[in-house]
């Protein structure tokens, strides 16, 4: 299927999901669905570097938090524009504030993408476990910076007061429905980008990096440039996933935003779904995300990480290539390539 057809199909599927969620008339569905969609974006973003290129990134929470705190900072500037936007440049910028959530998503993506590029430049000469440790260190460094950055609330956190609802193209939507729609669109875009990469020259290059970097270079693949592209795209999507979060949760603080669940989930979901295809993170995120939401309301949110851990161990043992790998093995056993 051509990439543009896939994108249209993904958007159509997103519209159907949104219509069904509206028809269900349950705010909870939007709250829970938002989290699942957020993990689809995070898992897809992680997979661009971790799955396609084979570089395991434990810094998802850092990029997610970059998006979150970009929103917090710009929201604060927007609500006090008279104070923070002074001088000629400030007066020119004032009419742009307060920024809409889609604008914040794009700006967060740019900031996280640039930081992803920088991180890539500093760390991509490292491989394997050393790279993974470096990404974890990035998360720790950024968390320390945010804790000490008073403008965004520091360690005490920051409150974001959102509107009750808003009208989009004549439709009156509750704010959570609006955020759900934004995350749905973002998930569709992330999946389309992942699918586009997978079948492209870039995707072949990423696969060779995952398989054998020395052989890739010998085949003419500019591995360092491609890895920088991967860290930038991956970081940008993670940042975009974090941008609407302050409006969703209402209160953000560093311990929660840089929390372990983001790093663990975004690694586990593609691993369980399968890392070599765009569908793997989607399947993993839907499966794990839904299970976690069910566990949260039926048992306790404390079992979420336990669920992830148990499933990850099970899959590593019985299906190291994830659900997609199981399907491909089954097809191959039936003589289909």
């Amino acid at each position: 299927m051509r990439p543009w057809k896939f994108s249209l199909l993904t958007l159509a599927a997103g519209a159907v999901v949104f219509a069904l969620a509206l028809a269900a008339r349950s705010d909870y569905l939007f709250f829970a669905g938002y989290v699942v969609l957020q993990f689809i974006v995070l898992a897809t973003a992680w997979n661009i570097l971790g799955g396609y290129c084979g570089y395991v990134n434990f810094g998802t929470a850092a990029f997610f938090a970059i998006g979150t705190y970009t929103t917090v900072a710009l929201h604060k500037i927007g609500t006090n524009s008279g104070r923070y936007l002074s001088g000629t440049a400030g007066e020119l910028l004032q009419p742009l504030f307060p920024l809409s959530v889609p604008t914040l998503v794009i700006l967060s993506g740019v900031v996280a993408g640039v930081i992803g590029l920088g991180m890539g430049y500093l760390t991509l000469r490292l491989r394997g476990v050393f790279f993974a440790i470096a990404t974890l260190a990035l998360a720790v460094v950024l968390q320390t910076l945010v804790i000490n950055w008073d403008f965004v609330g520091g360690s005490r956190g920051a409150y974001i007061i959102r509107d009750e609802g808003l009208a989009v193209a004549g439709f009156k939507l509750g704010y959570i429905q609006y955020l759900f729609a934004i995350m749905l669109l973002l998930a569709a875009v992330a999946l389309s980008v992942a699918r586009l990469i997978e079948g492209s020259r870039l995707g072949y290059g990423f696969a060779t990096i995952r398989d054998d970097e020395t052989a890739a270079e010998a085949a003419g693949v500019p591995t360092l440039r491609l890895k920088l592209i991967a860290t930038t795209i991956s970081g940008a999507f993670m940042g975009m996933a974090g941008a609407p979060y302050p409006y969703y949760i209402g209160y953000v603080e560093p311990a929660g935003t840089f929390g372990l669940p983001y790093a663990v989930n975004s690694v586990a979901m593609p691993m369980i779904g399968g890392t070599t295809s765009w569908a793997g993170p989607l399947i993993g995120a839907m499966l794990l995300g839904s299970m976690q939401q069910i566990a949260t309301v039926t048992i306790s949110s404390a079992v979420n990480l336990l669920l992830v851990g148990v499933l990850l161990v099970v899959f590593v043992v019985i299906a190291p290539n994830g659900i997609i790998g199981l399907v491909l093995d089954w097809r191959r056993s039936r003589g289909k390539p």
Partner: protein
Amino acid sequence: MTAPLLEVKGLAKRFGGFVALEGIDLDVAPGERLGLIGPNGSGKSTLVNCVCGTLYNEMGTVRFAGQALDGLPAHQRTHMGLARSFQLPRPFVSLSVADNLRVPLLYTVRRRSLLISSPADLDERCFELLQQVGLDGKARRRPSDLTQVEMRKLELARAIAAEPKLLIADEAMAGLSHSEIEDIIALLMRLNAQGITIILIEHIMRAVMSFSQRLAVLVSGRKVADGKPEDVVNNPEVVRAYLGQ
């Protein structure tokens, strides 16, 4: 006199205190078939790695088609027409046999948009290359399904896919049977007839002697002989160091 395609002058490489290569001078003329031999640990693969950019040399210069290669990453050297096969085959295991060839075609021969992947002419070229090495029946298989000789053929086909001016075949025949060696030699001869200059690194003397127009010998990181194969194998230093007494 024709200008050399590859010029190596005073090349040196150390690993800590170990001198892997010292003062290597080597010229290879366009269209030539050069055999490079030497005992294990003599520095053959290190020399290839320095020429191809997998390792950087501390001293000396490498020029290819008149251009200095020093400091250039491996992929740029491949773009310039310098391709290699590895001593131990290193296929892209997650890609099919045909896709293994698609990579150099996409990145070396047809460098256009990063988002374009599979025009029909690429598929056709992949098939031609696979036919050339006798792997056309296995285009959609994974490299893990291939035999030893097929894996080596894939390794050579991937190097050829980059449309090189110079191909360095690093022990392309190791572990193969008599008839399989004949297959590979015939393939290399065909490539050479198409105008590709070839450096063959090999331990199998029968293959080296039948293939090479010129032979260079490395011993303990130094070049001890360079000349016609029949003269080189009778060189006393080569006999002492390489063939034994």
